[in-house]
């Protein structure tokens, strides 16, 4: 005799008790009792389980993104601190020829804003391409990648914000360099 594989029976329900006063869970129990080899579940429960799984994945993705943002911010901060040290002489010359502290800060912030905008855009494009590749490779359920301009704008805005926040301290530090010392910096 051929051993039957375990069947999985799913049925739809409004989720409310029926006229006879049976709840969906009672119906599931009754059918399960009649079909011991089948795994019985209500469609509502299946959908809820899927939604919960997607929610959990979304929360995980948000947490990973937050960690990536913090790491990105720290990398920009250390890069800018290094850049200020590397450009000590240049900043000293700019101060010596009469640029105000505010102008030094503006110069660095404009530079970071330009780099962050390009970085945000490139990041979004690479992210979309990677998602498209991964979806076409792994997904067999016909999930489509949606183009959402809000995500593009959000990526650029987030990159700008993180870039600006990470550069405030290095820029202030640069503006406070003593020009007479800075031009002698080796």
């Amino acid at each position, binding site marked *: 005799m051929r051993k039957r594989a375990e069947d999985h029976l799913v049925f739809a329900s409004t989720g409310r008790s029926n006229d006879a006063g049976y709840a969906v869970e009672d119906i599931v129990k009754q059918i399960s009792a009649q079909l011991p080899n089948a795994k019985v579940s209500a469609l509502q429960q299946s959908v809820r389980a899927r939604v919960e799984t997607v929610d959990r994945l979304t929360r995980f993705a948000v947490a990973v993104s937050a960690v990536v943002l913090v790491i990105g911010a720290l990398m920009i901060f250390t890069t800018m601190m290094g850049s200020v040290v590397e450009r000590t002489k240049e900043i000293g010359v700019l101060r*010596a*020829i*009469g*640029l105000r*502290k505010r102008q030094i800060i503006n110069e660095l912030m404009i530079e970071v804003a330009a780099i962050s905008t390009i970085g945000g855009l490139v990041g979004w494009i690479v992210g979309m391409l990677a998602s498209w590749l991964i979806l076409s490779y792994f997904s067999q359920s016909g999930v489509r990648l949606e183009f959402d301009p809000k995500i593009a704008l959000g990526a650029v805005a987030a990159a700008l914000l993180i870039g600006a926040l990470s550069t405030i301290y290095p820029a202030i530090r640069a503006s406070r360099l003593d*020009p007479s010392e800075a031009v002698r910096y080796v």
Partner: protein
Amino acid sequence: MSFVVVNNIGKVYQSNGIDSAVRVLGGINLEIKEGEFVSLMGPSGSGKSTLLTIIGAMNHPSDGRVLVDDIDVYGLSEERRADFRREYLGFVFQQHHLMPYLNTLENVMLPLVTSKISGKEKRIRALAVLQRVGLASKAERLPNQLSGGEQGRLAIARALVNEPPLILADEPTGTLDSKTGVEIMEVFQQLNAQGQTIFMVTHNPENAALAHRIVNIKDGRMFDEIDADAESAA
């Protein structure tokens, strides 16, 4: 009437508290008239560059006052002092400190970055200054495509573009060979002949002798002043 008045200037550096205070300048008095070319000489560590940066509104003295065009330089706020440097001073550094990623013209335009004049006007002014130092034909070149002498002339052009009344030069021929050094000193002499006031720190007695007056400094104190013009006349 003197254009620059250095009145009893002293400078003490404190690196690790009062115990390690080092006095590098004391009791310096100096006057520079408009259109004068003054050289400052002295051995290494004598305080020459410190005095230059104090006159250059970049290094607050511990004692005394610096007046330029009757403006008490260190009575100004730090930001007003930056404006003062832009309007009154042109710096020529020993290492030139040119921006390697900017071409010749852009390097000269750098002090005009905060100026309210149009971009076209900035280019015209920068090109006119490059013409004065003989670099107009190399306006598009990067500093590393210029010879040492040309880099020195470019540094002078950058110092001149704001038309500052006073040029401060810190050993402008210090990194150059003697022939190129002569070339740079000729530019300074031409500028001075056109009425430019110049204060130059140098180690080189021959270059110093090209000025109207030589001020000698040793151990942070002035010990000698020579009227180079009178000496050469004698």
